[in-house]
């Protein structure tokens, strides 16, 4: 891993696209506890681009695991906490297409489910200002070349929720293509689901594993050193199978690739 520490991080990129912008980082609950490298990399990347990155401590989760299991009532307080935590910020940025997708696609429905018009108003505002890191870089900061250096062979898995819920489109690929030193190999059947599906992997473990095995086979066929994606739980799922097969292909969040610099490597 080639993440720079805050004290030794690279210079802000030319033009300091993020200068004057304060970003509220939504680390996501899974990243906070299980994959801190991704929000760390996001922080360092945004700081390198001139942003001030704050981490509102009240944040917990987007609520997706509960909504997607059918627990609406239980999720409403989580949505309320999210909305209140991030209401005052102009930019809420997360290293997860899936969690951003959940905020964007489900929080309004849940505010309506609660019959809370006031919450709905707050949610409307927050939803409009919540971005996946790839969207924030390209749409708000207007940069594709973030000054990253990653001299490795990678393949990119466009996670389902990044693609079809958050609709990040080709932004991650454009960012990766601008990374110096990188070699990107096409992933066969890239748009097929890896079989994670949140509680699906526990409720339908056998189908989930069969799907993950297909994905792992396709990843292995690329000969890449790293499997890149914008969602760590999908990476956990796929790399779990890859590890079991001793494939040697390492999972890495796209933010970690983009945060890597020549100075640090």
């Amino acid at each position: 891993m080639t993440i720079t520490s805050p004290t030794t991080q690279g210079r802000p990129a030319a033009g300091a696209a993020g200068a004057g912008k304060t970003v509220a980082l939504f680390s996501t609950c899974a990243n906070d506890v299980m994959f801190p490298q991704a929000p760390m990399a996001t922080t360092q990347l945004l700081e390198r681009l001139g942003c001030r990155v704050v981490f509102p401590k009240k944040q917990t989760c987007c609520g997706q695991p509960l909504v997607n299991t059918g627990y609406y009532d239980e999720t409403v307080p989580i949505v309320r906490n999210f909305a209140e935590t991030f209401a005052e910020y102009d930019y809420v940025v997360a290293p997860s297409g899936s969690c951003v997708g959940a905020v964007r696609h489900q929080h309004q429905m849940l505010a309506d489910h609660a019959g809370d018009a006031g919450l709905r108003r707050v949610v409307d505002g927050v939803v409009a200002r919540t971005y996946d890191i790839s969207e924030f870089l390209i749409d708000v900061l207007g940069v594709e070349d973030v000054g990253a250096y990653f001299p490795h062979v990678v393949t990119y898995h466009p996670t389902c929720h990044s693609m079809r819920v958050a609709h990040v489109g080709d932004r991650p690929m454009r960012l990766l293509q601008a990374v110096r030193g990188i070699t990107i190999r096409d992933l066969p059947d890239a748009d097929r689901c890896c079989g994670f599906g949140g509680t699906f992997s526990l409720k339908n473990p056998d189908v989930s594993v069969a799907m993950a095995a297909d994905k792992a086979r396709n990843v292995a066929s690329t000969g890449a050193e790293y499997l890149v994606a914008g969602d760590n739980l999908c990476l956990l799922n796929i790399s779990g199978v890859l590890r079991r097969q001793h494939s040697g292909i390492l999972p890495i969040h796209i933010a970690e690739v983009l945060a890597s610099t020549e100075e640090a490597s």
Partner: protein
Amino acid sequence: MSKATQVPVRRAGHTDLESTRRTPAPPAGDLIDSPRFPVQAKVELGNPVQRKNLHHAMTTIRAKRTKVAAELDNWEDLRLAGEAIKNRTLRHLDQYLVQLEESLTAAGTTVHWARDAQEANAIIVGLVNEALGDAEGDAREVVKVKSMATQEIDMNEALEEAGIAAWETDLAELIVQLGHDRPSHILVPAIHRNRSEVREIFLEEMGRYGRPAPEGLDTEPANLAGAARLHLREKFLRAKVAISGANFAVAETGTLVVVESEGNGRMCLTLAETLISVVGIEKVLPTVEDLEVFLQLLPRSSTGERMNPYTSLWTGPTAGDGPQTMHVVLIDNGRTKVLSDPKGREALRCIRCSACINVCPVYEKVGGHAYGSVYPGPIGSVLTPQLRGVTSPVDASLPYASTLCGACFDVCPVRIPLPDLLVHMRHKVVEGKKAKAEADGLKGLLHPHAEPAIMKATAQVLSSPKLWAAATAAGSLGGKALKGRVAKFGPLPWPLSKWTNARDVPIPPTESFRAWYARTHHEDGSLK
């Protein structure tokens, strides 16, 4: 549930009935009594032949659909139009049905209404008996056009019980029927079978029910189709009564539309003397011109062709051409229940194209039999629990038979928000569980259902910044304690064993993100 590894073994329990039956016996039992999805899915996953067949077929059909949908530069406009037309008819369904009834009647077709399967089957049996008059023996038969509505009401078995043989004439349906099997897909029902299996079924079974398969039949699909042509032609040429469904019913004119490939539909619709069409009430379209939208959307989404080989439109009997007696049976069978849920009713837009099934990664792994319904895949997982309710174990498990990957919505020609509806149905399942726990009262408290309790506890932590902060601190201890000892977790105890049986899990990090941030940053974002 049938199995595809070996060729059809007659189901135990049907052997005794076989001698009195007119048609091959399907597998025993009702679909609604099927095991929960994960249980049957595991069984199906253990069938490598089926998995190979499905992978090949679904990959092929997906590629075809993608290609022909991309050919039309106004494909997304067509989808929006399809969605809007269906919404219009569903939101004013009573008006359009009354109009359809008037038009059908004016065109010389007799209209019947059936609230449920039993009522529909009683009407159909009555009509067939009337049409067959005093015909006896082999002549007490009908030929069928492939129809999801008739499958849904299990019409063939109702006719069988009334001593009437219903012959499936679609090639795949014939394979399924002769194989004592159940369909596993709404468009290509025998897709779980490969050519060798089809050959075995034809050689073994055709002769029992009509013209035998030619001697020396090989596994070439063209020759297998040729055997079906010969076997069925004698049935077509003598058929007095045909039963069809309808892909569309035009309210304005009373026109019914059947979309097909093989010509078996045309044989039934043209050669019989009496035609009975079983039509779900959601099949209605306002005008003839609406067909220009759906007859572009359906074939491209369904078989991945620019147009299916044959489409028949008819508006009552035509003197000197085709059946002179026509009936339409309009069936509800749960549809009004679906309609009563403003969110759930979006599923009624479905035109049964199967694009969502073909693109579903879960379906591709397990096939249609795991779904315990005539409607498998994403649409089945939202429609079946709405039509039948969420009380049976299989119905309550269906909304969870998806990773919510969203591929289904992208291909749906009428833009049914399938992932949202799957979540919506999960919510209904949960509400059902909670209501049951409450109804159980003290018993419910003593034996709480595990999942609601776990979810409630999780939600309490996730909606409380303090509890969550504490949890993250506790969680990162795990990594610290293990630091340097192991690089990954192997098998973990249940329920995490469901994960670790096939996957390794890395050890948790030694420091949570929030701990790192607090160590390196001030609250205002400046660096320490």
